[in-house]
């Protein structure tokens, strides 16, 4: 029979046995929430497993029971005796079907519908269903307590040590060749047996990953999604117990990723992602932990929605959510009972799942970490303690002591005297240069106080932050070692990943590459961070255009202000109205020039804009586009924002702000002044230029939708339509009363217009 199916049978059978007590307790007290949860989790797990084992019948039963129990959990339904009976009947039935699967016998499924019907809220009290249980068959696998296996393993180690002792004695006493041959045979058998015994505890994580491709395929098909699954690190070996305990959480997470995380092809296309969603499951060992990482490139967790759901479902108050940090809000996905989904599917979305996943992982002393990238995907990392693992190591010597280093973390071993290897001291830091690559050097001898000789061998250790060279006295051997966690006081040093007892009979510590770097003060993190900051600043650094100015200076101007570069005839430029202006179609725009432009037949101008206003800047020639460095030495002359160094050259940065600051507002942005024109045209001829010079736009008639900021009328114009309250009346004589203003009192007029228009502007 399929291994997976067998495991499912064994597990379900075991859970059912454990659940028997819960069921009885729940029957006695249907309001008992913890019992209810236990039963709910059972049917949910069965449902989950059925999905990928292709057991539609069990899936139907468990889904039905789950629905009914979910209603009770949501307080939508009261657990009465009829419901309890119906659920128990379904649980019993699951047990029978499981037995039938195990025994390979057919089981009549006619009663299933009755059982499912009995779960309905309005079901008539069901008659006691009598079902014939299939014969229970003996399985070819047995379950053993971990204690027993441990005793077997330690017995094995003792045997190896005894063999070593015996071999030593025989060597010392010069044994006879036949005895030596026997010892040889004993050693050989022992080695084989040790391997077998180890396998009873250890398993490649591959067995955990083996079910994934099929499950991913089926789940994706069911949901109409395309998913590409990548599996890495399947050869990591792990305690069998851990593998078993991680199976359910992994299945939940993978299903969630496909159901909730990955979008359908159309949505992905719209988001600019490849149509096929990617799911990456990988395992690796890091320090004294195994990390199982499940990463998808889907939509990530909508934290705001999760928070809103939590409030809606009464799990948190709005105030709590508002006060929560982003991480705490993300953490809400683990809240029991939370479902971020609006519809329930057979795949997931029951709100069990993440809380159960976390409980399972914490139960084995692990933890779960989320890295959410909204719109880009979610990465879930399961940190599982390395209770026991076989690690391929390199045994190294420092002083008189030996240490093991995980082979995985060593990239290369080079002799410190080899060609192309240099060791230097830079200040108080040590540096190794290996074939031109500079690496921080950590000499293990001085670090551990075991020796202060210069290192003779360098191991290039790769950590997540970066590589460094670990200076050693000797590289002795490679060995597969059974590693166990060390005592807290030993782990507290941060240097070790665990301890092991090799055949020598002397305990040995497993070094943690990243921990050593940290203890030695090698700061990759900071170095990387600085690099990133620089990158970020370079990115954020304003792009600017270098150009040669009319006065021969090399200057830079913010690229954002530049609209285009234009060549214009000298004749288009004239000094009019107090400044240089450039004719551009029917309008003029202000032209800034550092020197007089008279001796140029043609001009190159930078057309600048701030979005509303426009102006031009005359130059000789544009140059490269560069990123302005953040260090800007302030300038003391107007028109220049400061001086930066670009390519070793001092460059003045044009103060674009100043260029625009003295421009008149563009016509569209000027407040509107409505002139109630008089017959003589005085307003149009005399008044209008004066008002426009003050920054207003004058019209004689309002276009539809326009509102005047202020309106002007002659004192004697009679009734004018009340355009707004902001009407200024003008009188013809200096003397006069009321609130009108003498028509040549320019200052008073402007002030009055300003005052009236102020309310609108």
């Amino acid at each position, binding site marked *: 029979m399929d291994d997976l199916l067998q495991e499912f049978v064994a597990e379900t059978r075991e859970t059912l046995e454990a659940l028997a007590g819960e069921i009885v307790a729940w029957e006695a007290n249907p309001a008992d929430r913890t019992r209810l949860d236990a039963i709910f989790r059972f049917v949910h797990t069965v449902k989950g497993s059925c999905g990928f084992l292709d057991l539609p019948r069990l899936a139907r039963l468990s889904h039905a029971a789950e629905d009914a129990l979910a209603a009770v959990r949501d307080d939508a339904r009261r657990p009465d005796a009829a419901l309890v009976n119906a659920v128990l009947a379904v649980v019993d039935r699951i047990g029978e079907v499981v037995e039938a699967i195990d025994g390979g016998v057919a089981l009549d499924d006619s009663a299933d519908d009755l059982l499912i019907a009995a779960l309905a809220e309005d079901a008539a009290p069901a008659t006691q269903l009598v079902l014939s249980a299939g014969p229970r068959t003996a399985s070819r696998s047995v379950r053993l307590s971990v204690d027993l296996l441990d005793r077997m393993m330690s017995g094995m180690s003792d045997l190896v040590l005894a063999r070593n002792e015996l071999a030593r004695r025989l060597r010392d006493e010069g044994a006879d060749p036949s005895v030596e041959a026997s010892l040889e045979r004993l050693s050989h058998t022992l080695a084989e047996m040790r391997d077998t015994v180890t396998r009873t505890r250890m398993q490649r994580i591959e067995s955990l990953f083996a079910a994934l491709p099929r499950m991913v395929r089926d789940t994706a098909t069911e949901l109409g999604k395309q998913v590409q699954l990548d599996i890495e690190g399947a050869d990591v070996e792990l305690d069998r117990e851990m593998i078993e305990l991680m199976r359910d959480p992994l299945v939940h997470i993978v299903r969630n990723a496909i159901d909730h995380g990955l979008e359908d092809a159309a949505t992905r296309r719209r988001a600019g992602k490849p149509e096929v969603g990617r799911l990456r499951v990988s395992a690796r060992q890091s320090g004294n932990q195994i990390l199982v990482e499940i990463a998808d490139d889907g939509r990530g967790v909508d934290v705001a929605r999760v928070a809103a759901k939590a409030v809606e479902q009464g799990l948190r108050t709005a105030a709590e959510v508002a006060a929560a940090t982003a991480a705490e809000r993300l953490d809400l996905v683990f809240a029991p009972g939370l479902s971020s989904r609006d519809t329930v599917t057979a795949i997931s979305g029951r709100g069990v799942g993440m809380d159960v996943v976390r409980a399972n992982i914490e139960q084995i002393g692990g933890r779960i970490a989320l890295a959410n990238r909204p719109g880009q995907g979610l990465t879930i990392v399961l940190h599982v303690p390395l209770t026991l693992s076989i690690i391929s190591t390199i045994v190294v010597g420092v002083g008189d002591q030996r240490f093991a280093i995980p082979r995985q973390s060593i990239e290369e071993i080079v002799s410190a005297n080899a060609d192309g290897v240099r060791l230097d001291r830079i200040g108080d830091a040590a540096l190794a240069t290996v074939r031109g690559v500079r690496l921080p050097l950590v000499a293990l001898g001085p670090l*551990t*106080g075991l020796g202060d000789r210069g290192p003779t061998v360098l191991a290039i250790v790769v950590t997540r932050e970066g590589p460094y060279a670990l200076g050693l006295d000797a590289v002795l051997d490679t060995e597969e070692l059974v590693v166990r966690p*060390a*005592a807290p006081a*030993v782990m507290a*040093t941060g240097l070790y990943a665990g301890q092991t007892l090799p055949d020598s009979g002397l305990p040995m510590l497993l070094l943690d590459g990243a921990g050593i770097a940290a203890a030695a003060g090698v700061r990759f993190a900071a170095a990387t961070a600085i690099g990133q900051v620089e990158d970020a600043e370079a990115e954020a650094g304003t792009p600017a255009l270098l150009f040669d100015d009319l006065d021969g200076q090399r200057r830079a101007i913010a690229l954002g202000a530049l609209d285009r570069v234009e060549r214009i005839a000298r004749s288009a430029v004239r000094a009019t109205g107090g400044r240089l202006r450039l004719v551009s179609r029917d309008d003029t725009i202000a032209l800034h020039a550092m020197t007089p432009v008279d001796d140029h037949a043609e001009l190159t101008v930078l057309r600048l804009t701030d979005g509303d206003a426009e102006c031009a800047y005359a130059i000789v020639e544009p140059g490269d586009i560069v990123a302005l460095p953040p260090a800007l030495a302030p300038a003391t002359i107007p028109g220049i924002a400061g001086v930066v160094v670009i390519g070793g050259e001092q460059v003045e940065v044009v103060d674009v702000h100043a260029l625009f600051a003295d421009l008149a507002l563009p016509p569209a942005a000027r407040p509107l002044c409505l002139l109630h024109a008089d017959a003589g045209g005085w307003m149009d001829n005399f008044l209008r230029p004066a008002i426009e010079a003050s920054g207003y736009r004058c019209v004689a008639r309002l276009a539809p939708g326009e509102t005047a900021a202020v309106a002007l009328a002659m004192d004697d114009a009679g009734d004018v339509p009340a355009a707004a309250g902001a009407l200024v009346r003008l009188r013809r004589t200096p003397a006069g009363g009321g609130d009108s203003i003498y028509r040549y009192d320019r200052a008073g007029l402007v002030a009055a217009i300003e005052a009236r228009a102020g309310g609108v502007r």
Partner: protein
Amino acid sequence: MTELFLIARIAGRPVAIEAAQVDSVVDLGEIVAVPRAEATVRGLAALRSRVVTVIDTCVALGLAGSAASARRAVITRVDGHHYAVLVDSLEDVAPFVRQPLSLGLALDGGWRAIARGLVERDGEPLLVIDIAGIVPQPLAA
């Protein structure tokens, strides 16, 4: 009520250790140092197929370290890890009635932290100690 106690000598003083805390009493083999661990951790030793963490009891009590040759130890199990707690010598295993610590008994820091009462052997009062208390605990996270 009488309990079974192991009478040992630590830092020259006889003490009583609850027998229930004691896994076994051994003479350790070679001790492998644990560089950079706190001074309380003398090192690691192999005890049959098991690795035990050796605790220098004197250092744990805030006294000068035990002699480098000290090998006799009491094995105890704390949180799933086995520790060998070094002792000067072992004298006896016997049932005693535990009495509360006399008021006003001025114990210094290290001893006070592990003192759990008194027993009386032939008129000689012996301090009852909690050897699990000697084992360094990780800082509460």
